[in-house]
């Protein structure tokens, strides 16, 4: 049962004066560079600055895996599959005596980007994102309950349109829940950017390519703890708080959506079992 939510938060308090926009920050040499924020305060795809993209999620898409989930954030589509906790495969010596090992793999399908990708996984970016996923989930999953075992999380991007890592984290959270592995809290991830002092939530691919600062935040909403924080491109220190706040709010909004999805799924499953 998909959860469809379009979140529309009130317009930003700062009024955007018509006609006083500074030149658009697009790629140099690109004559038709889209402005990140129009005069009326709309983004390139018609969203408000703090508005998230449409989120559709579904749990339990595969019968064979222990847990699986599929999420769509706008045009970004991610699939996550969880196996575990099970006995250590491969080298038994790597088993941790007091907790479970979380093993992550991140891959992008060859058809996910505009040009066909040669290597779905194994390149450096995939390795780095997989490491970040591993660290995030090792902190969030209650690994102390499963000593000497292994939990595998495989994430695949089917269509990449900005916010790849965030979609992966959200999909993986749902998949881990679907597998019944206990976690401290939901892990919700969202990206945020800045367009002339206005923080933008949930960047799409053209907004990311525009070259402005991009903040990726993975949050545990109940306690407000940050599991992962990454910033690329220059951002003035004064604006950091605003950007963090925007990303935090977006994560909390996403948490509401994911929570709805999980509860609907639970109702569905109990209804099936009941009959």
């Amino acid at each position, binding site marked *: 049962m998909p959860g469809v939510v379009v979140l529309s938060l009130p317009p930003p308090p700062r009024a955007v004066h018509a006609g006083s926009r500074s030149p658009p920050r697009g790629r140099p040499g690109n004559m038709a560079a889209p402005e990140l924020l129009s005069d009326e305060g709309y983004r390139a795809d018609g969203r408000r600055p703090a508005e998230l993209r449409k989120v559709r999620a579904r749990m339990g898409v595969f019968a064979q895996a222990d847990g699986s989930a599929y999420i769509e954030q706008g045009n970004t589509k991610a699939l996550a599959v969880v196996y575990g906790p099970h006995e250590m495969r491969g080298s038994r010596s790597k088993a941790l005596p007091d907790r479970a090992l979380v093993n992550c793999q991140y891959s992008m399908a060859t058809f996910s980007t505009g040009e066909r990708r040669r290597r779905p996984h194994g390149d450096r970016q995939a390795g780095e994102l997989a*490491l*970040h996923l591993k*660290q*995030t989930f*090792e*902190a969030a999953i209650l690994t102390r309950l499963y000593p000497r075992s292994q939990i595998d999380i495989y994430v695949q991007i089917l269509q990449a349109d900005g916010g790849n890592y965030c979609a992966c984290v959200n999909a993986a959270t749902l998949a881990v829940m679907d597998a019944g592995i206990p976690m401290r809290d939901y892990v919700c991830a969202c990206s945020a950017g800045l367009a002339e002092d206005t923080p933008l939530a949930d960047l799409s691919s053209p907004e990311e390519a525009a070259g402005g600062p991009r*903040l990726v935040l993975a949050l*545990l909403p109940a*306690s*407000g*703890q*940050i*599991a*992962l*924080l*990454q*910033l*690329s*491109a*220059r*951002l*003035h*220190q*004064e604006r*950091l*708080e605003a950007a*963090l*706040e925007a990303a*935090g709010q977006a994560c909390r909004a996403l948490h509401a959506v994911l929570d709805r999805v999980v509860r609907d799924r639970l109702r569905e499953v109990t209804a099936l079992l009941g009959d």
Partner: protein
Amino acid sequence: QVWQIRLDLHLLNHDGNIIDAASIAGIVALCHFRRPDVSVQGEEVTVYTPEERDPVPLSIHHMPICVSFAFFQQGTYLLVDPSEREESVMDGLLVIAMNKHREICTIQSSGGIMLVKDQVLRCSKITAVKVAEITELIQKALENDQKVRKEGGKFGFAESIPNQKITAFKMESAAVDTNNVEEQAEEIITKADPPSEVFAKPILHTPGTAQIGEGMENSWGDLEESEKEEAVEEEGESEVTAFECEKIETEDTSTMRETKDEPIVLSDSEEEEVVILEPQELPKKTR
């Protein structure tokens, strides 16, 4: 046609926090670098050699410097610029790169720590302070280098050789306050009990081999049987050497004597006087 520049970083000694050191090294190297001058006229490109025209520096817009923070105990403790030991026990690491205009260039949190927004903001403030200091240091060093090169003094490695080795582990010597040493020593001596009198009674086993005292139980700790035997042997040997090196006067040798031939001195000891001691009755071994 474009220029291609390559930056190679070599780590000589890892004592923690390579990221910061590498970022500083990288940006300073790029600021210090000079490329050959070029003139472009339409389609013609002329590259001048260093002899023809002075090489020009790269155009550096800003100098990003990384500062690392190590977190301990779920974010309770925070250490700036962790050393190697601190890094090996830390929970997680937060790296913030900033330039002197207080623009954050990158933030990376890694290691599975859970941070709170306030901690991140606090760290960014600390980073601003550190980066300002470091950028000033870098500017001074670059200016100094430029000046020295013009004047013809020592620069580069030559500058640092007489004072300190680059590859050596340099630690500052700790100052020890020796002002009150004499008084303290006097105090200790007056308070302490006088040492018990020790009488040395060497026991001559054979000519050239003697034993002084019985030795004491090894107080270092529990030794296994084999180690005990070794310890016994070693103690016996040390006693013998002690005997050969010292001239010992005893009280009891005159009273007791055994009827024996005069022992033939075969030792090649370098002592001026060789004192032959009369053997005594062997005391009961208490080991």
